[in-house]
């Protein structure tokens, strides 16, 4: 019966947002389960990890949009049964108890117990470990995913995916970093000189492409994340960017300028053949595959200002996709949806505002996703429910918009300025 119940829910849920995600959604917080995340007092790791782990799990659950966090303070050992009455009096539905251990062989161990207060039942007991303490954010995300899965809420599996980004450090100097989505864990994978536009090479996230300025011409490099083995694929006068990878990982959308003009190309990594997609005496950049990799959506200034267009691979016609804004210079696509960055102002003498907008290719309605500052470089998640973006104001932030929940979150970058991101 419960399966049928949930099946109906998911059919409704899916059809709602397939219908038109551009519509504003108002959420009722009172219907979400309230969870209390507590760390046991019998074993302490020390340092900041205890506190940070709890904070990260709470942040994950908040970002999911499926939980309310309770700030109730409880002092308890891991093996002591919870005082259900205390939780009930505080209107808490779920109680997550954590225990951290430092193990000589396994490194950091996190044991968890999840109690359903309403049924007074232990419903999940699990152990997580990582050999290096600095990787504790991924344990937090895994725990959050399991709790979310227990509730059978819409997937948040993207939380323990890697983010890859480039950040400027100085003139002609940047580095490429792998992180979790909160930027708590960070690992530099390419440094020295100018290295920009990192892009995952496949869904497994075991290798990535990026643009290197090591040589006189910018080059496209493929690097294995685990061995650091590098392969130079192509180079071009002027610029070279890998802006998208086909779903099977075999084809790349590139912006190159072998004829002095920035145009869109598709490069087959197996045959090593590149095919020119656009031919225009201006700017064509930022291509991405749509419609089962048969069409390219891209940015062009062919109307004398940057806007979003599409072209079917192998065909001649160009289709204009956006009829809003006067400076739309970046976009991301998911099925029939497009999110684009639009410069709202044209101010040579002061700050300019960039906002993100969501449209459906089947409707005229435009939904604004951000309101202030410089919001750029949108990237849809693999399931289309979230958008990653860069916000550059007084400092750089990695932003996440949870489209279906009308929420957005910002995670500050401690040093440097975000150049580009992928997940």
């Amino acid at each position, binding site marked *: 019966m*419960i399966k049928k*119940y949930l099946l*109906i*829910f998911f059919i*409704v849920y899916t*059809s*709602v*947002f397939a*219908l*038109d995600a551009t519509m504003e*959604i108002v*959420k*009722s917080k009172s*219907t979400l*389960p309230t969870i209390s995340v507590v760390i046991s007092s019998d074993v302490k790791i020390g340092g900041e990890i205890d506190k940070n782990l709890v904070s990260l799990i709470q942040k994950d659950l908040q970002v999911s949009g499926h939980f309310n966090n309770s700030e109730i303070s409880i002092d308890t050992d891991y093996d002591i049964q919870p005082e259900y009455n205390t939780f009930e009096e505080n209107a808490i539905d779920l109680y997550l108890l954590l225990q951290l251990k430092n193990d000589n062989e396994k490194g950091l161990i996190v044991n968890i117990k999840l109690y359903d207060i309403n049924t007074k*039942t*232990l*419903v*999940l*007991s699990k*152990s997580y*470990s*990582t*050999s290096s303490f600095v*990787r*504790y954010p*991924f*344990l937090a995300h*895994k725990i959050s995913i399991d709790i979310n899965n227990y*509730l059978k*809420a*819409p997937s948040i599996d993207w939380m323990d995916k890697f983010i890859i980004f480039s950040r400027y450090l100085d003139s*002609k100097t940047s580095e490429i970093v*792998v992180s979790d989505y909160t930027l708590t*864990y960070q*690992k530099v*994978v*390419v*440094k*020295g000189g100018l290295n920009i536009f990192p892009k995952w090479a496949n869904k497994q996230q075991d290798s990535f492409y990026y643009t290197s*300025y*090591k040589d006189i011409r910018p080059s496209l490099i493929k690097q294995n994340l*685990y*061995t*650091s083995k590098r392969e130079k694929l192509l180079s071009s*006068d002027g*610029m070279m960017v890998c802006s998208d990878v086909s779903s099977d990982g075999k084809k790349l959308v590139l*912006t190159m300028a072998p004829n*002095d003009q920035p145009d869109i190309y598709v490069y087959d990594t197996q045959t090593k053949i590149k095919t020119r997609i656009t031919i225009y005496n201006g*700017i064509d*950049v930022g291509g991405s595959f749509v419609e089962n990799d048969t069409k390219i959506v891209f940015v062009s200034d062919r109307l004398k200002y940057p806007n979003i267009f599409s072209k079917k691979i192998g065909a001649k016609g160009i289709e204009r996709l956006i009829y809003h804004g006067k400076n739309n*210079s970046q976009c991301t696509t998911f099925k029939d949806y497009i999110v684009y960055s639009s*410069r709202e102002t*044209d101010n040579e*003498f002061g700050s*300019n505002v960039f906002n993100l907008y969501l449209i459906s290719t089947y409707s005229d309605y435009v939904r604004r996703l951000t309101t202030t500052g410089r919001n750029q*470089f949108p990237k849809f998640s693999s399931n289309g429910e979230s958008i990653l973006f860069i916000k*550059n104001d007084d400092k750089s932030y990695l932003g996440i918009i949870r489209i*279906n929940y009308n929420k957005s979150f910002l995670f500050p970058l401690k040093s440097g300025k975000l*150049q580009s991101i992928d997940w």
Partner: protein
Amino acid sequence: MNSILKNTVLGMCAIGLLAGCASKDVEYEDTTASKKVEPVKKAEAATETADDKAASVAGTDEQSVSDSTDTTETNTALVAVTNEGVNSVQSDIDGKVVLLESVHFSFDKYNLTDEMREVATVNYNKIDETKQSYDGLKIKLEGNCDEWGTDEYNYALGLKRAKTTKDALVADGIEANSIVMVSFGESNPVCTQKNTACWKMNRRVDYRLLP
């Protein structure tokens, strides 16, 4: 658990309703009586060690490999000179110093103004003179932008600026195949203050001579 699931499902359906879902034909069952709660012992027996994705990152921990810096620039000992709003690039070709003034552009534009076209012509004359003594001299044109855009379009804008400058050199008489272009987008500012004068200085093309 039943109550949580029920509340959550109803809550999320409420979201769906507010989003414009026509849900009148959908009925919900009260599954309270039919859902069995897992006993404590069963849950404890399910204890397992999670697959540790983070551990797989181990391969990268000590393997950040540095790229070397741009060897071309190192070889030619180039120096950027900024003076009273005008920036120039100094190239040292076998002891001969050539100072070439950068060409600047308007906000969001890649065409040369009359004033900048004159600067391009002055640069051409210096390059042409240098080429008389150094056969095979290459000219590298570096397009740059202000900070108003971190995206790919900004890199293309820098390239278009370099292309405009290349066209001017070719029109004046430099062979096209002796010119190399590269765009640095906003990654190569000569001024990092947040003001109009600074942004203007960063919208430029630098000329570098390579032996």
